[in-house]
């Protein structure tokens, strides 16, 4: 938490908001955007531990939805339900309803591999494969058996991630030679190369410096026209700057067990969450009084 926020949170926050938050968010009446994810009574367990309690929210098409909250509040866990990444953890169990458009993502017939081809993910630490830049981007299209010209797919994806001009002369060089910010944009290029419907971003800028962060935020605003984006972030200004809607999660101790479990406190237009939150816990968090 920087001293700026602590000293004058409201001002610093609203300074960073898009010029007119009201016009930025889609009108609520009339042409409501299509719902991409519908979450109802979502509970996630790690073994016997209930990590996320009764989360319900909706994610809308071609919007950026931000999940904010203190550490351990379950925001990443919820995000990882959207492309069934939690399936990779043996002891994780998901209960409740999670609809992708109108399909139950946890229906027994649904293949998580097929889900992940439609719902891409960018992780908190850049994790390029130890291969060439080209092979990193081409990996997804190759395993998906996508037709078409690989060179073209790679170029389009790298352009989409705003990395093409920086790497076009060294596509055959190792991706590990790129800077952290470039690596993360490569991971975004890699994710959009399979043309997903949705991009999940799990704290994509947590390992990056402010300039690289700015570049990625810029990129997210551009990508919004084509993709539905859900981003988990520790950085509240980031949520305020880029997102259309914000969900605030918190970790609360369970009366019976004393274990800290994640709960959704409030979910609304980003402008409202940051200017006029309903819940006092949200207000306390965004004004820097806890978390």
């Amino acid at each position: 938490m920087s001293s700026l926020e602590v000293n004058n949170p409201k001002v610093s926050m609203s300074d960073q908001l898009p010029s007119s938050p009201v016009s930025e968010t889609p009108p609520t009446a009339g042409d409501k955007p299509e719902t991409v994810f519908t979450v109802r009574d979502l509970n996630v367990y790690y073994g016997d531990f209930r990590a996320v309690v009764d989360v319900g929210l909706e994610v809308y098409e071609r919007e950026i939805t931000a999940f904010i909250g203190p550490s351990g509040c379950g925001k990443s866990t919820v995000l990882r339900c959207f492309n069934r990444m939690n399936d990779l953890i043996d002891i994780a169990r998901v209960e409740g309803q999670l609809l992708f458009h109108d399909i139950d993502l946890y229906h027994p017939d649904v293949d998580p591999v097929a889900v992940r081809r439609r719902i891409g993910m960018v992780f908190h630490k850049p994790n390029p494969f130890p291969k060439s830049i080209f092979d990193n981007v081409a990996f997804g299209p190759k395993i998906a058996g996508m037709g078409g010209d690989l060179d073209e797919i790679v170029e389009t994806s790298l352009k989409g991630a705003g990395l093409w001009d920086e790497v076009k002369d060294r596509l055959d060089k190792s991706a590990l030679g790129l800077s952290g910010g470039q690596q993360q944009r490569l991971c975004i290029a890699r994710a959009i190369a399979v043309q997903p419907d949705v991009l999940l971003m799990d704290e994509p800028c947590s390992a990056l410096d402010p300039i690289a962060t700015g570049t990625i935020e810029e990129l997210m605003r551009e990508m919004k026209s084509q993709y539905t984006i859900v981003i988990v972030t520790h950085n509240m200004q980031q949520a305020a700057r880029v997102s259309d809607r914000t969900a605030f999660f918190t970790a609360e101790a369970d009366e019976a067990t004393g274990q800290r479990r994640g709960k959704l406190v409030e979910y609304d237009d980003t402008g409202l969450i940051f200017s006029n939150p309903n819940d006092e816990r949200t207000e306390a968090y965004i004004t820097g009084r806890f978390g």
Partner: protein
Amino acid sequence: MTALSPDRPGKTRLPLTLESLKRQRSKDGFGQVFQGLLLFSVAIAFAMVATVLITVLIDSSEVLRGQFWDFLTNKSSSDPAKAGVAQGIRGSLIIAGIVTLVAFPVGIGAAIYLEEYAADTPLTRLIEVTVRNLAGVPSIVYGLLGLAVFVQGLGGITGGSSVISAGLTLAILVLPIIIITASESIRAIPSSLREGAYGLGATQWEVIRTQVLPAAMPGILTGAVLSIARALGEAAPLLVIGAAAFYSTGFQGQLDQMQGAFTALPMNVATFAKLPADVWAGHAAAASVVVLVLVFSINLVAIIARARLTKKLGR
């Protein structure tokens, strides 16, 4: 001077002087002693290896200089001037080949299964512990196993005490080493790499084939080569399964020779070492040099392969 740090009530501070910041050497006496001991350990280890190498080279110099080519190309003989290790070299190379063909795929396969597929159950853990313990079983015990299984049990295929039995026995001997080193290399691959591939819609097999195995390959290779070196140096199991000191091939074809009597370089070393020292002194040492050169060459190939693989991974 204390103005550098604002006084806090209830806490007394030492005055800040140059003296207080000077290194207090006397206080780190234990550190110095410990470092000295560590250096001593390194020196001992190095001295031991150097002694062995120098002794072996000096002892073998007469044989290697006087009859170098004959020593490499002749089979063993009762005449010290004619005796050589050609049969031992042939046996050791075939054994190395069989170990490579049998132990590498089985060992690496077992490691992949244990690390990537097997659920973390008590049974899996029991198997892992057992494999670790097997790596510590004395090699002569593997010799008994080889005698029972390959020489006697499968004698119809292996031909009894043959180079095939020897290769299979040593393959079993090094299997735990390969499984352990391959498992550890696979476990060292960061989960972020797997997640990255899974996140793009890769199946488990695609993740293993395209990401985990290539990234783990340098480590797997190192373990595999070490295991070959181990197999090439073992004499005890060969003695148990009935390696010959030297043998006559007569008019046998290649396949018959595979199933017939055999020897290997460690066996040559053991045989020469048992003969009267006055005329046979240098032969055991010379055969050792041949083993060492063989092992070092294999290591060299592995180092080069490892360097190329690592470079390909861009690290």
